């Protein structure tokens, strides 16, 4: 899921002050931001109190099913039409995708209320770890199910680098070097011998912005499978 953290309130305040927003509508997200405890109902209500303490009026708030779903968000906007209409701005407590969905659905200034940080695994309640950067060219088949692109701080495909010391990582010194872990696990599974160095990554698979249209795929257009860069 998408991991978010609260955004510096000074920035939010400055955003609202800049357009002289006295009345604000707050939109949360019932999916990732609720799980992250950054944009669920309790956090939306906290934001409401914070805005009111700044002397602003909160015209209404909502936590829809999932903020990054265009259709769902439009529905949510219709439900709160009046409250949004009377607001000067909308503050969205969701990831950047959710903020943009909202910005497309209303014609008011929309501001981000959170920082979107990574696609995270839930380690346990309230503790998240980044394991995948969605590179579009997965190497987990070659790396014993440990992603070096994401979990090696340098993102090296082949390692360890020269900074590894006694099995520990140069950058995150309290952690094992990812490439030591990969090589150990490959060896344990008897796969070390077949492990040739990985070739350079195909970053065209990660060209921005990503796009995928399953309707195209149903029609047999494989191009829809990857980022826009591989259309030709």
């Amino acid at each position: 899921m998408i991991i978010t953290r609260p955004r510096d309130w000074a920035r939010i305040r400055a955003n609202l002050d800049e357009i002289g927003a006295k009345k604000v509508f707050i939109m949360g997200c019932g999916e990732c931001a609720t799980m992250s405890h950054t944009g669920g109902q309790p956090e939306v209500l906290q934001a409401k109190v914070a805005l009111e303490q700044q002397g602003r009026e909160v015209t209404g708030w909502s936590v829809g099913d999932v903020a990054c779903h265009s259709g769902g968000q439009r529905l949510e906007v219709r439900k709160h039409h009046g409250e949004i209409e009377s607001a000067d701005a909308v503050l969205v407590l969701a990831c950047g995708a959710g903020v943009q969905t909202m910005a497309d659905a209303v014609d008011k200034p929309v501001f981000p209320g959170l920082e979107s940080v990574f696609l995270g695994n839930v380690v346990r309640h309230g503790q998240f770890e980044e394991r995948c950067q969605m590179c579009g060219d997965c190497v987990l088949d070659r790396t014993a199910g440990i992603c070096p692109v994401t979990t090696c701080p340098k993102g090296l495909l082949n390692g360890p680098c020269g900074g590894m010391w006694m099995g520990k990582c140069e950058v995150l010194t309290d952690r094992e070097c990812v490439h030591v872990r990969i090589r150990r696990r490959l060896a344990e599974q008897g796969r070390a011998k077949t492990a040739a160095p990985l070739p350079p990554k195909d970053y065209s698979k990660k060209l921005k912005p990503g796009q995928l249209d399953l309707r195209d795929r149903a029609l047999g257009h494989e191009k829809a499978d990857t980022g826009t860069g591989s259309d030709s």
Partner: protein
Amino acid sequence: MSRLRSALEAGEFVVTGEIAPPLGTDLSAMRRAIEILGPVSTALNVTDNQGATLHLSSLAASRVVVDMGFEPIFQQTCRDRNRLALQSDLLAAATLDLKNVLVVTGDDPRGGDHPQAKGVFDLDSTQLLEVVSGMNDGHDMTGRPLKGGCDFFAGAAMFPEAEPWDIQIGRALEKAQAGARFFQTQAIFDFDKLARATQAMHDAGSYVIAGVLLLRSPKVIDFINAKLAGLMIPDDIASRIRDADDPTEAAIQLAIEQVRAARGIADGVHVMPLGLDDAVPRILREAGVVA
């Protein structure tokens, strides 16, 4: 052909030194270091934004070494450039008559003087070595032929004292396979480990140049232990310098012993003077490496 390469192939014990380009455009201090180290070295490494801190480029500084009549080892890290820039700099290096290239991953930007920088690492050191090998074969990394090729003598870094050894050696062999003909090691304190590493690399057809670090002062030791990735000074060595009346002289004596020890094992020494450039000729003389 590279002088470093012909010396190694002729079985000579080589010496490589280290030149740090300036932060700025005043080359006088760098030229002075080249004047001191050049005459006693087979080739001089020219570092590439070492420690992820900004310096004049290794490419330009390597050419200064050539102009002064000595041979540089152009260092290229994977940290600051993507594959287009790396290849274009390699082509530039060939036209500037730089014959040796040392390929390293590079320290993470978070440890340097621009911690906000994006670490590029588009290629890793093994992949970049393959690119260099390909250029020596006359093509870029997509396979397109080069108009006018390259003949680099390529090297890589190696860490004989960093455990786990099976992983270290596996990694070094991959680099050799990718085209590393010589290896410059991190500072050596345990010469049995150097012997083990040298044997393995000789079997793979590569040369080993052993790192010798001038531990000038207790402060330098603290700095290395705290800041330099992949290196720890053993306590007995550290206390030899710390407890000495004249730490600089103790460091010089230690280096002389280490150069002598390396001489019986490896194919050369890579001296990292950490500012004590003036002492290097004496160390090499007293170790019997230069006349």
